[in-house]
């Protein structure tokens, strides 16, 4: 691993073609994700959030770049590491935090917790506790879009660990065979829980594996929001033109452990430092926006302060929210129409 010197500059990124987009908003959302995610470990360790969470600090550009390339009616599904996707899709921090706390004002009234936060009104079918399963739901949403002619595409996020589970390839094959408007989005942060993915993956390329299923597969720098945006936008246009699915592999990195409070003995400090110093998605976008004259230091500080304030407000909101009504513990598991129901 290459040693890191103090003065190494983050890698530049290209904003060409993004002039009409509100990249300052993108950066603000990435800062919100960063602040939100960094607030969670202490809240878990203090017991405010029951259990642990999987945070995506370092992966902000993937979520924001992909989500800003989609339409409001498009369907998105996520994985067990879902907060960045949810926040980028527009789930409000207050009910998201209340959900993590298990409180009544959470997105799911305390039923869902970290891995199942959803926003059905935004066609965001939630995180998923089962590796690769979210892609399957996106597959079905894409099928419905095709059958209904609804003009939607569906994007399913999954991690690099999911490239070694069968259901992912069943879904990709079906989408390719039926030319479904699906974007299969692999967020490759290099580690499947604590196992380096390369050590447990046959072949040397995820995109080449995907290509063999008969669909275009693109690898992209996941620490460059604009690059992610461009590939997802192209995949979406292709899907809407009836040309079928696209596989995207975004190379990214999580700065923290797989789950709350975990010690990372499986990777080197140098590796972590290299990703943080050279490729941090927030630093890179900030530098590019500053160079383009679209953001100054005061503007950045204002975004950062706003993100911190939102997280502080969300934490206070969650803490003040009541526990769920216990009478709802088994409410709405099934809802048989009384007209179809025999003996109640």
């Amino acid at each position, binding site marked *: 691993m290459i040693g890191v010197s103090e003065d190494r500059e983050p890698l530049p990124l290209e904003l060409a073609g993004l002039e009409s987009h509100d990249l300052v908003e993108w950066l603000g959302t990435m800062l919100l994700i960063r602040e939100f995610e960094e607030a969670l470990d202490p809240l878990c360790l203090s017991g405010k959030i029951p259990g642990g969470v999987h945070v995506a600090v370092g992966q902000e550009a993937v979520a924001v770049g992909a989500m800003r390339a989609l339409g409001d009616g498009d369907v998105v599904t996520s994985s067990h590491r879902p907060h960045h996707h949810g926040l980028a899709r527009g789930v409000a921090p207050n009910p998201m935090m209340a959900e993590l706390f298990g409180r009544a004002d959470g997105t799911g009234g305390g039923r869902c917790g970290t891995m199942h936060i959803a926003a059905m009104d935004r066609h965001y079918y939630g995180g998923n506790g089962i590796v690769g399963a979210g892609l399957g*739901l996106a*597959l079905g949403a894409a099928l419905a879009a095709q059958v209904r002619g609804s003009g939607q595409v569906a994007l399913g996020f999954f991690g690099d660990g999911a490239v070694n589970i069968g259901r992912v390839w069943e879904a990709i094959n079906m989408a390719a065979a039926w030319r479904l408007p699906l974007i299969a989005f692999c967020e490759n942060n290099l580690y499947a829980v604590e196992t380096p993915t390369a050590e447990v993956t046959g072949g040397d390329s995820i995109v080449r594996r995907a290509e063999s299923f008969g669909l275009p597969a693109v690898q992209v720098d996941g620490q460059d929001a604009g690059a992610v945006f461009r590939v997802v936008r192209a995949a979406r246009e292709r899907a809407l033109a009836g040309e079928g699915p696209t596989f995207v592999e975004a190379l990214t990195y999580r700065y923290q452990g797989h789950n709350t409070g975990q010690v990372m003995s499986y990777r080197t400090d140098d590796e972590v430092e290299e990703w943080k110093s050279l490729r941090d998605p927030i630093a890179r976008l900030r530098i590019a926006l500053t160079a383009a004259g679209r953001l100054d230091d005061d503007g950045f500080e204002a975004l950062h302060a706003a993100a911190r304030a939102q997280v502080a407000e969300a934490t206070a909101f969650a803490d003040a929210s009541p526990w769920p009504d216990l009478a709802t513990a088994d409410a709405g598991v*099934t809802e048989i129409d009384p007209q179809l129901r025999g003996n109640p």
Partner: protein
Amino acid sequence: MTTRITLSQAFQQGVREEMEQDDSIIVLGTDMVERGGHFAQLRGIGTEFPGRVRDAPISEAAMVAAGVGAALNGLRPIVDLNFIDFALGAMDEIVNQAAKARFMWGRGVPLVIRGTAGIAFYAAQHNNSLEAGFAHTPGLLVVMPSTPADTKGLIKSALRSGDPVVFLMHKSLTGLRGEVPEGEHVVPLGQAAIRRAGDDVTLVSYGALVARAERVAERLEAEGIAVEVIDLRTLFPLDLATIEASVRRTGRLVVASEAPRHGGIGGEIAAAIQESAFYYLDAPIQRVGALHTPISHSPPLIAAAIPSEEQLERAIRATLQPEGAAA
């Protein structure tokens, strides 16, 4: 007006009528369009509704996942797995996705997962009795009709339900003929049927065992023993009210299933009835079920593993003995 058709044809009729009324119904499964599935259960539907029946790859996980995602996005899919045993390759999609979405996200999953079930040929891996496991999973409705008319009526209800329905059709009943009402004929979910009235013993069963129970009841009638035969039809939710009302009259209960006796639907009914009607019981409840074994290929070994008419009869007689001797 009724017509005399097979259970498979009754299923087709129900699906056809619902597809004519509801454009959102589609069918996914292997060998569906031309063949109509491995039991001809959907013969003709593929050509009658072009584009709405799809031949899927043999990818059960993807089929069920596609059904769940499509249901969340406005369709009402039937995922036809041919044999319900193949659901084992899609267990996460059934248990963790289909069954959980309404609870987690407040959005029902109007999905029918159809499979041919019950005990017949093809040995161990094609003869799993999975119904109790599905019924044990919150979020799923489970249906297993025993007559052509109920098959039509229940698939119509299932295709109007807002929840995932596991729809089980017994292998040996595929060609069973019976009178089926034409046009609108809906059988409610969660309602058992009294196949034969009687005041001495209540015998509860489902699937192919119902007909065997009726034959036993007919024989015992000659001896003056009146057996009430109840066909559950829906395994979740269970129609305990009908069973309890019957037991309050008869004071005796036999529960019978082709599934392994341990951990089955019959045990659940026995427990529920002793809770709600213990003081009406005149004898211990008798449970009849399969041996705790996978199913063999050899016909005599199959017969040895699953309940026979003689076993049903012994169980009925056991409830009539003062000491409640074991069946």
